[in-house]
């Protein structure tokens, strides 16, 4: 299915959307298509917002964000994310914030259709003040108090993978992060892949997602650029470095968006 059709069919205004890929296999092409189609009022979920959400936030696609680490990895700040949170530009962005352990477990609970997950975490931190997503439970056997996180169940998960087979099953490998959990936690799932093969190769550490848990598979070579796609391309580090300058300033950001056919969708 062409990516534009997949996004049109499965990503709606107001949806909770998780574009996952933990520093590797980040679904940039799909994110740009979401922006191109002018989706608005999204709740964006992602462990590491990275440049991909910096762009969507700057373009005004998001009303809320759920995340655990929002930096430009190895470079510095996400300036569009900061501008939205600090200055409400292009509009106010509501923040729901986890630790990695917390958000990973929230996805896992979602994938299991459990309302919450238990973990050793958060104790003594101020993140615990977000009582609507982080709470405590008591072990019924030992009396020990542990952290609980509310499950995350996105309307749609979007990931990039290396391979699909002719039946639409998907294979990804290398650092596979939380993609399996995000896809299984979501109501719908879109996958972009580098290529389609007749048969999957043997790959230690590969994750295979059966076609029947996926809503759409689109062939988008280089769909993770400028991030990594193990076996296909390495991170375009120059872009990550340059992004710091591009994103630091609203005008240079908007110029970049215009050049790339990405419209600013906020009406504020």
């Amino acid at each position, binding site marked *: 299915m062409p990516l534009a059709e997949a996004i049109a069919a499965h990503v709606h205004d107001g949806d909770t959307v998780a574009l996952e890929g*933990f*520093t590797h296999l980040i679904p940039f092409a799909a994110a740009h298509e979401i922006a191109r189609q002018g989706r608005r009022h999204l709740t964006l979920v992602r462990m590491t917002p990275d440049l991909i959400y910096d762009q969507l936030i700057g373009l005004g696609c998001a009303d809320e964000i759920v995340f655990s680490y929002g930096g430009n990895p190895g470079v510095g700040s996400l300036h569009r994310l900061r501008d939205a949170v600090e200055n409400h530009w292009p509009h106010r962005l509501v923040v729901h914030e986890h630790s990695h352990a917390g958000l990973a477990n929230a996805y896992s609970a979602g994938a299991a259709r459990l309302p919450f997950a238990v973990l050793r975490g*958060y104790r003594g*931190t101020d993140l615990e003040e977000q009582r609507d997503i982080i709470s405590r439970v008591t072990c019924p056997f030992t009396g020990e108090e542990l952290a609980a996180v509310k499950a995350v169940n996105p309307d749609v998960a979007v990931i990039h993978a290396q391979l699909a087979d002719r039946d639409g099953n998907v294979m990804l490998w290398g*650092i596979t992060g939380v993609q399996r959990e995000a896809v299984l936690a979501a109501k719908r799932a879109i996958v972009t892949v580098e290529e389609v093969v007749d048969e999957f190769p043997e790959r230690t550490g590969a994750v295979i997602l059966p076609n029947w848990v996926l809503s759409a598979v689109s062939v988008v070579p280089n769909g993770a650029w400028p991030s990594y796609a193990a076996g296909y391309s390495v991170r375009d580090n120059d872009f990550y470095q340059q992004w710091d300058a591009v994103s630091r300033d609203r005008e240079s950001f908007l110029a970049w968006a215009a050049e790339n056919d990405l419209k600013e969708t906020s009406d504020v």
Partner: protein
Amino acid sequence: MSEWTSADMMNVAAARELLDGDVCLVGVGPPNLAANLARRTHAPNCRLVYESGAIDAKPKKLPLSIGDDDLAATAVSVVSVPEMFNFWVGAGRIDVGFLGAAQIDRFGNINTTVIGAHADPKVRLPGAGGAPEIAAAAGRVIVIVKQSPRTFVERVDFISSVGYGPTGRERQAPGAGPTLVITDHGVLQPDPDTNELTMTRLHPGVTAEQAIAATGWPLKVADSIEAVPAPTGHELATLRKLRDREPFDD
């Protein structure tokens, strides 16, 4: 002798704290540099674990980020992020966690979240990432952070990762907490009685007065301060090779 900066000294001092055989959770930035420096100098058998899922990675050059292909390709095993945090970090399988900080207070509590109020901050920082659970569960925590009054504050605006708690007495976690804070000035360690961070070592050329001036609370200095040996030529050469992302042959 090569020249070196106070940042070099900080990274070298951090690397030296890693013991051969340690299982080390490595984050981005200075921790990445320090851990790889240790592995390339005195601790060839330390096991680098990246929160992205790479266990016992042996990168040929300094990883650009924790998503580098080289990490997955050279790791003994690559696990999912939930498994990393549940079965490895949370379960207490990490000996040493290296952490950074935007603010740190006198009881080793770390802020990497916001300056100002969480709901409407003056400065939005990156957030906690893997640090809260590493800070809680790692056998010992080594914080690497440049010392300045803006960073070393009386009270952090937000506790992202707990050290010894707001008054030094509230830590409820399996690990020993921030046993060492390594800065560009020297090393701070928690007082055995009060858990207040106390300057115990100074880098070459740094005075106690300078350290006190770089600290936002009335810094205690240990009676017998240790002098940190300057970086060796081998340490500096290795550090530069890492920073230039030159591959090592192995």
